[in-house]
């Protein structure tokens, strides 16, 4: 029988469909400081150990200051320091490898997994973090879990799991000039809604997906959770295999060619059935900008802030009304006239080397607009080092951007990088929720190129009209 990629991976990891439901074996468990302390405490209280520390990997990302602080002990804010130090202590007590502050491999958990090559096709991957869906870009089944489940995986390397439904989003047409993976996924969420994929594992398919780089695919899968999806997946192909063959990755399989033969069998079989199918026209998408407080409240940069009463699509009018008040936006305002005070290029959605290269190309030889504070935060220490080797840091600094250390930074403002109340920010992150980047802060989600151009212009601009120096 024809099977979907999801079914193949699920079946290879399912343990006992006994009377009490089955378990799913977990190949890789990623850990960070925020969602793990209570799980370790639970293990300690019950006198349990970690079953597979060698299939577990930890890093510090959410809390870390991006000002060059080189060790947990130097974090000024007490609660953050305690949380990172607690992670370090827990990892050493339970024998879990960790790349904490100061390590050359530290970074956002969803950036370092692929970067180190431990994220591989066909695997099951979990992390106490909703954006674990990112790893699905490699043709893995990867999803976020809560702290109780983190504890369960630590103790048993499995999860009690019911098979979710499947959904395929098929793109027709190719992305136009200047339209990126971020625009593709924002446009998709705008069409299907922030609960459009609830209960489903989503496979992204079509030429527009096949043409994306691995980084672009990670951006798309990353935001699956913003449509409510359990996980996002993309079939492994030559682009995926090149991730391992073209760069030396310490976690890559020793017998890479044999591994690739296996991986090549993962894509969904022709005729495999999904529970739901959605088609999106990729060629119709313009660069996107969110105007509200959910990622589904999004418009093309050529458009206007909508009126809640005239909204088409899945956004509820009263929610939209509340969002516009919070965002201090008038219906009818052209998106391109929205002025900004802050720009953030970073987060697990868009902080990889390719994202930084794209942004640098836009800002090269130009200056950040007066009244705008702009920052670039590489996703990992390795991305930072690579960017510096290529001279990207100079380009950003010369243009007036702050060049910072690796971490989640202003994606969620659990560290000193935050918006002040009322500040308006163009952000390459994934959530524009109320207060996400700082209490009272106003977030507009965009692609790295769009954020870079907005920093220079001081307002949104259609990147397709941008003149590169």
């Amino acid at each position, binding site marked *: 029988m024809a099977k979907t990629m999801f079914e193949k991976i699920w079946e290879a990891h399912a343990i006992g469909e006994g009377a009490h439901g089955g378990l799913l074996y977990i190949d890789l468990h990623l850990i960070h400081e925020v969602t793990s302390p209570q799980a370790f405490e639970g293990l300690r209280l019950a006198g349990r150990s970690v079953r597979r520390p060698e299939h577990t990997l930890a890093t510090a990302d959410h809390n870390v200051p991006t000002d060059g602080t080189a060790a947990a002990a130097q974090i000024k804010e007490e609660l953050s320091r305690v*949380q990172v130090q607690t992670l370090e202590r827990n990892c050493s007590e339970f024998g879990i490898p960790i790349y904490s502050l100061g390590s050359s491999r530290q970074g956002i958990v969803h950036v370092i997994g692929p970067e180190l090559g431990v994220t591989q096709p066909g695997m099951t991957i979990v992390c106490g973090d909703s954006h674990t869906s990112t790893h699905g870009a490699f043709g893995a089944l990867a999803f976020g879990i*809560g702290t*109780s489940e983190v504890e369960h995986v630590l*103790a*048993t390397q499995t999860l009690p799991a019911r098979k979710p439904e499947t959904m395929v989003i098929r793109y027709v047409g190719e992305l136009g000039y200047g339209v990126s993976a971020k625009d593709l996924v924002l446009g998709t969420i705008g069409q299907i809604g922030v*609960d459009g994929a*609830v209960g489903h594992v989503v496979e992204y398919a079509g030429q527009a997906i096949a043409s994306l780089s691995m980084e672009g695919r990670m951006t798309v899968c990353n935001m699956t959770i913003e449509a409510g999806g359990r996980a996002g997946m993309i079939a492994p192909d030559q682009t995926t295999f090149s991730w391992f063959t073209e760069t030396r990755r310490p976690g890559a399989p020793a*017998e890479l060619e044999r591994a690739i033969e296996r991986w090549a069998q993962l894509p969904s079989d022709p005729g495999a059935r999904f529970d739901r199918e959605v088609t999106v026209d990729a060629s119709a998408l313009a660069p996107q900008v969110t105007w509200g407080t959910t990622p589904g409240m999004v418009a093309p940069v050529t458009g206007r802030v909508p009126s809640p009463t005239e909204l088409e699509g899945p956004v509820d009018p009263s*929610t939209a009304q509340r969002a516009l008040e919070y965002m201090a936006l008038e219906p009818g305002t052209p998106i391109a006239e929205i002025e900004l005070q802050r720009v953030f290029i970073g987060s697990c959605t868009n902080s990889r080397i390719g994202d930084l290269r794209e942004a640098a190309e836009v800002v090269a030889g130009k200056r950040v607009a007066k009244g705008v504070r702009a920052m670039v935060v590489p996703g990992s220490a390795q991305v930072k080092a690579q960017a510096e080797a290529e001279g990207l840091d100079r380009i950003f600094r010369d243009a007036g951007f702050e060049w910072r250390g690796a971490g989640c930074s202003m994606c969620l403002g659990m560290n000193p990088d935050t918006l002040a109340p009322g500040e308006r920010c163009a952000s390459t992150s994934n959530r524009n929720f109320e207060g996400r980047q700082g209490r009272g802060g106003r977030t507009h989600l965009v692609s790295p190129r769009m954020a870079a151009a907005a920093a220079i212009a001081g307002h949104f601009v259609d990147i397709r009209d941008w003149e590169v120096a």
Partner: protein
Amino acid sequence: MKPIEVISGAVSHLDRADVDTDQIMPKQFLKRIERSGFGRYLFYDWAQEPGWDLPANPILVTGPNFGCGSSREHAPWGLQDYGFEAIVAPSFADIFYTNCTKIGLLPVVLEERHCRALAAAGEGQVDLRAQEVRYRDPAGQLVAVPFTIDAEVRRRLLEGLDDIALTLSEHASEIDAYERARADRQPPLPCTSAL
């Protein structure tokens, strides 16, 4: 975990859609390394808005896609610590729903019109064993609405079972067997301690 049977009492109503976990438990409180005491931070920013009124009743009724966004279990911890025992909504975000069931906070999916009617009734009962929600309509008639819940999840909640203990006692040999069978699979799993 405390077994759940019937949850009855007054209803609080948060009439908003797509309430995300950043609102339920804002990030500044995620730095705590304890599991208890999150109730006082619940909806911290919204609670400072004029007109906010969300009493700590046993039942919370809310809008669709409740608990979307971040996977933080701190959100259900906060809701439970605040006093809610059951949350009734037209739909929930997946991770949030699972997180609730892991800590014995009962999520109940009910059609929007029944959610509204329950909220209007002001009090009601959520009966996990009978799998129904009961409330009185404006005429005083008792209304009983069935809801569905995964049989295994229901069993664990009814008996107050600890998932980890259950997995270890019922499945340990299966996990061992699975790992043995996989040992010669290609490619071998990446070993994080040998990077």
